[in-house]
C-alpha cells in the first residue's frame, strides 16, 4: 500500500542553500497534508501543514507547495541549517467530518545539511 510516496530516501544539501523534499500521493480522498521531522529515538515533530483548498503555505523558513492535479507536494527549507538534518515524513489525511482522521505516512527522506 503506497498511497503516500517519498521517492528519495536521502538528500544532501549545502548549508545556506534550499532543501526541497518531495512527496507524491495516489488517493484523491486525501485533503490535508502535513510534514513531520524526526530525529533518531524521538517522535515525529510537526512542521507545517496544508489544506487541499490551498496551493501554498509558509511558516518561517518552511514552505509547503501542493499541486493537486499532479498529486504532488513539496517542502522547501530555505536557508538550510545544520539543525535541519533529520528524517522528514510527508503525511496525508483523508477527508472526513471532524478530526480524528488517521495519517498515512510516506517512507521518509533523510536530509543531511553539510557545513
Amino acid at each position, binding site marked *: 500500500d503506497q498511497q503516500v510516496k517519498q521517492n528519495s530516501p536521502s538528500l544532501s544539501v549545502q548549508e545556506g542553500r534550499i532543501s526541497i523534499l518531495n512527496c507524491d500521493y495516489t488517493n484523491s480522498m486525501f485533503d*490535508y497534508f*502535513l510534514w*513531520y521531522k524526526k530525529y533518531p*529515538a*524521538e*517522535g*515525529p*515533530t*510537526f512542521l507545517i*501543514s496544508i489544506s487541499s483548498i490551498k496551493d501554498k503555505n509558509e511558516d518561517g523558513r518552511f514552505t509547503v507547495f501542493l499541486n493537486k492535479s499532479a498529486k504532488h507536494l513539496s517542502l522547501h527549507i530555505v536557508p538550510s541549517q545544520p539543525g535541519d538534518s533529520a528524517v522528514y*515524513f510527508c*503525511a496525508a*489525511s483523508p477527508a472526513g467530518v*471532524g*478530526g*480524528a*482522521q*488517521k*495519517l*498515512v*505516512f*510516506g*517512507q*521518509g527522506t533523510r536530509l543531511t545539511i553539510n557545513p
Partner: protein
Amino acid sequence: EPEVTQTPSHQVTQMGQEVILRCVPISNHLYFYWYRQILGQKVEFLVSFYNNEISEKSEIFDDQFSVERPDGSNFTLKIRSTKLEDSAMYFCASSPFTEAFFGQGTRLTVV
C-alpha cells in the same frame, strides 16, 4: 510548551506476555492516536480515539490490542499477548483537530 509524554521509553517483554504502554496527551486536545513504526518501515496508524471511544482502527489493530482512557489524563495501549512481530516503536499522538502532535515513543522489544 505542552507535549505528549510516553512511558516507559523502552520495554522488553517475553512473547505471550501482556504489555501496557502509557501516554499523557496534551491536556486540551480532543483526539488521541496510537501509531507504530517497525524498524526500517513506515509509521503506521493503529487507532484513533475520540469522545471515549474508538473512531477508527487499522487492520493491524486486532483483538490483541485495546485502548483505554482510564482517567482524564492518561491514554493507554494494551497488547494482550505479545508476538515477536509486535516489536516496534509505538507513538502516541494527540490533536486539537487536524495536526497531530507525537510523543517521543516507547520502544517495545518482544523476545
